[in-house]
């Protein structure tokens, strides 16, 4: 706006000059016309009157124009005395035109230098002396008649007559107080903005509306150390350049602010992630410039990435106990996020170091690395790498890998060539430690220039190694346990089998002796007793071995059930009848149901279940007492309840009663021996029949065991 006004004043000045010239021309014309002896004097008079009229109108218009313009105008004669002032000039100088008329300009127009406060030579003097248009020096103060000071802008120009004689000076000036204030404010705000731009830790820049770089702050040069004149794009990671340019183009087209993450190269060659935000600066909707900032978010991003990676790696590790597979997955997760090349080496059972998992960003290189690991197996005495880490139990951390690093443990020249070709730039190797054992080592390597490990990476590597080591350890322990279980079952099976043959002989001979003694009657009573003891104990041993074998069969999944219709009522009754003659302290009662209860099952196994439950009822009623065996039909189930009034089972023991080798706490106090096998086998047999065995008991008052099996589905129901 200011510029527009300045232009307008200059134009006005021109207009004034041209008007004056026109007046002079007209006057000259008038004189010329008068001088001419014309054919028609009257006509001349008429013409002259018209010309005079015209000249008067021109003068009046000039006066109005001068009075109307916004700038102050003062005209002087050739002596520098004031001949004309417009109202603005009157207001600014404080001199009314009538009083100023005829006064020396220096009286009316007092000016001085703003800084020195020394009077300045009147521009009029110079114009008069040199006859040229002059502008006042900057920082001019006009001192009004009342002493008020105002900064002004001012131009002086000579006034010449038609012959070119200098007849006066016209001075145009204006009050620039407002402009000066605005300038000062602008200067101040620009200064502030620049100071801000230099003070903040971010990289800051300003772009022209078309995207041309106008300004980059000092931080940029400090961060990148790019030489003056080198294009800023050179500091952007080559993979990110296209994104930067397309985003910028789109933003310019849509006039929208944008944000993106890019890697910027630091002076030391390391690329760090920055968050770039660029916003348009608008004036009345038009974009004047773009202002951008880049904030270093590398550590934040890395920490986030690390956490995400750890979470994914952990879930992979926890997924299965097949650690060979899970570690291969972990190396895949690591590349390229936290390494360009990741390898896991483990200590094999024979103490050699074996490559377990490997991943490289380039599949061809990965294959080459696998070949290398076969061709050049790791030497456990090697000076660097996994062997050294395994020996020391401490990580190895080389933020920058030098060429000589690789030639410490090479086998031959070709090996050196291979290793150099891998172009490792940064390297971490951490041991896999679990329960004070060194299980192996994980190696992370960067091969791309600009990627470099720092201490945060080392911490991440250690954390990962700790989780991986735990996973390996757990998996190995699990395998060992599985193997131990398998060996135990195998041993149990073989041992029981091998015990059977001598037991058969022992049992057969003892019972033969018993039979012979009873029949032939030539044994003494105490010999008979001895023979009975041998036979009884052999029988007992037989039952125990049979129970152990059952456990072994259950564990190995070899307990098989041969199904055929079985009447549970009849079976229960038979078992009760067989047991009854062997009792002396106890009574046993069978409570029947007036209908058969047919189930699909293995009669021998179900007999074993009932014998066991009844045997327990007797065994755990050491004071003797009644035992009731009751058959019942409950919904579609055939049930046998075995009820005793024995020692009962503590409430805390009930949930675990059917567990293998479990024995309730109160049996020891009663000195009742057992292996904790019977009820476990009962539960398994009943489960194989699709049934369920349950118990209700009160300690000291007895127990009720119920064995329920699905009834056979028959076409005719009674």
């Amino acid at each position, binding site marked *: 706006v200011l510029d527009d006004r300045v232009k307008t004043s200059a134009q006005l000045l021109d207009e004034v000059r041209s008007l004056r010239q026109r007046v002079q021309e007209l006057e000259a014309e008038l004189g010329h016309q008068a001088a001419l002896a014309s054919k028609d004097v009257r006509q001349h008079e008429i013409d002259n009157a018209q010309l005079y009229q015209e000249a008067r109108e021109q003068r009046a218009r000039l006066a109005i124009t001068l009075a109307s313009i916004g700038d102050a105008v003062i005209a002087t004669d050739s002596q520098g005395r004031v001949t004309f002032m417009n109202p603005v000039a009157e207001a600014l100088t404080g001199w009314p035109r009538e009083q100023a008329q005829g006064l020396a300009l220096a009286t009316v127009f007092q000016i001085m230098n703003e800084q020195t406060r020394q009077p300045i030579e009147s521009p009029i003097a110079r114009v008069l002396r040199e006859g040229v248009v002059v502008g006042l020096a900057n920082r001019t103060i006009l001192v009004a008649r009342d002493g008020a000071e105002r900064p002004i802008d001012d131009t002086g120009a000579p006034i010449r007559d038609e012959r070119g004689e200098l007849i006066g000076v016209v001075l145009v000036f204006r009050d620039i107080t407002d402009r000066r204030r605005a300038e000062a404010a602008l200067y101040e705000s620009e200064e502030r903005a620049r100071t801000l731009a230099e003070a903040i830790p971010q990289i800051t820049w300003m772009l022209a509306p078309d995207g041309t770089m106008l300004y980059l702050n000092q931080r940029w040069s400090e961060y990148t150390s790019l030489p003056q004149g080198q294009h800023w794009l050179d500091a952007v990671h080559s993979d990110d350049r296209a994104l930067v340019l397309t985003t910028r183009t789109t933003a310019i087209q849509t006039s929208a602010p944008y944000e993106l993450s890019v890697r910027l190269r630091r002076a030391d060659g390391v690329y760090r992630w920055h968050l770039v935000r660029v916003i348009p600066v608008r004036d009345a909707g038009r974009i004047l410039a773009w202002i951008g900032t880049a904030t270093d978010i590398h550590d934040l991003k890395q920490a986030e990435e690390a956490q995400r990676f750890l979470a994914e790696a952990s879930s992979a590790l926890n997924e299965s106990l097949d650690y060979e597979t899970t570690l291969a997955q972990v190396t895949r997760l690591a590349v390229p996020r936290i390494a360009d090349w990741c390898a896991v080496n483990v200590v094999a059972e024979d103490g050699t170091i074996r490559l377990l998992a490997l991943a490289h960003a380039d599949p061809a290189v990965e294959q080459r690395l696998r070949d290398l690991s076969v061709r050049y197996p790791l030497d456990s005495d090697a000076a660097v790498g996994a062997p050294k880490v395994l020996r020391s139990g401490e990580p190895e951390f080389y933020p920058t890998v030098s060429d000589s690093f690789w030639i410490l443990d090479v086998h031959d020249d070709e090996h050196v060539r291979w290793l150099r070709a891998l172009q490792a730039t940064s390297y971490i190797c951490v041991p896999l430690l679990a329960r004070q054992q060194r299980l192996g080592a994980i190696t992370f390597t960067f091969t791309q220039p600009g990627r470099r490990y720092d201490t945060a990476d080392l911490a991440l590597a250690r954390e990962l190694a700790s989780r991986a080591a735990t996973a390996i350890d757990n998996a190995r322990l699990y395998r060992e346990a599985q193997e131990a279980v398998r060996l135990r079952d195998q041993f149990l099976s073989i041992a029981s*089998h091998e015990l*059977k*043959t*001598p*037991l*058969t*002989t*022992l*049992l*057969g*001979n003892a*019972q*033969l002796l018993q*039979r*012979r003694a009873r029949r032939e009657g030539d044994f003494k009573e105490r010999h008979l007793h001895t023979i009975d003891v041998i036979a009884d104990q052999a*029988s007992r041993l*037989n039952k125990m*071995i049979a129970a152990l*074998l059952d456990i072994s*069969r259950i564990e190995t999944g*070899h307990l*098989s059930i*041969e199904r055929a219709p079985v009447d549970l009522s009849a079976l229960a009754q038979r078992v009760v009848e067989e047991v009854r003659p062997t009792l002396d302290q106890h009574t046993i009662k069978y409570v029947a149901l007036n209908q058969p209860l047919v189930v699909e099952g293995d009669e021998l196994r179900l007999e074993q279940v009932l014998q066991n439950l009844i045997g327990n009822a007797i065994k755990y009623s050491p004071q003797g007492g009644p035992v009731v065996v009751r058959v019942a039909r409950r919904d579609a189930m055939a049930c046998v309840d075995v009820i005793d009034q024995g020692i009962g089972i503590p409430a805390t023991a009930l949930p675990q009663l059917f567990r293998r080798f479990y024995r309730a706490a109160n049996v020891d106090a009663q000195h009742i021996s057992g292996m904790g096998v019977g009820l476990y086998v009962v539960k398994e047999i009943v489960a194989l029949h699709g049934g369920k065995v349950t118990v209700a008991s009160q300690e000291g008052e007895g127990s009720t065991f119920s064995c329920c099996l699905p009834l056979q589905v028959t076409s005719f129901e009674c």
Partner: protein
Amino acid sequence: MHEAPILVIDDDLAIRDTVSEILVFEGYHVVTAANGADGLRFAEQSWPALILLDMRMPIMDGWAFTHALRARGATPPIVVMTAAQDARRWAQEIGATGYLAKPFELHDLLDVVARLYGI
């Protein structure tokens, strides 16, 4: 006294002796063999009324013995006598009439013999 013998085939001498003793005490005539091949020779000579057969034996096992015996047209009842947990299944496999899972009680042996002898 039963005339036709019971053939006991088992590679374990103690078992052969024990089973033999028990059966002899009950009045049976017993011949024994340590493997299927010997058993087959006895069977061809003496036409047993009942065969008590162990399954896992050297030289010729229970399966081969049964097969060979059947091939000769002989069909005496056979009782499988084994310590293996598959006694019942093996008995079915070879078409035996019964089985005795070692270790067995004396009365189990006598029951099965009484039931099957001479049928």
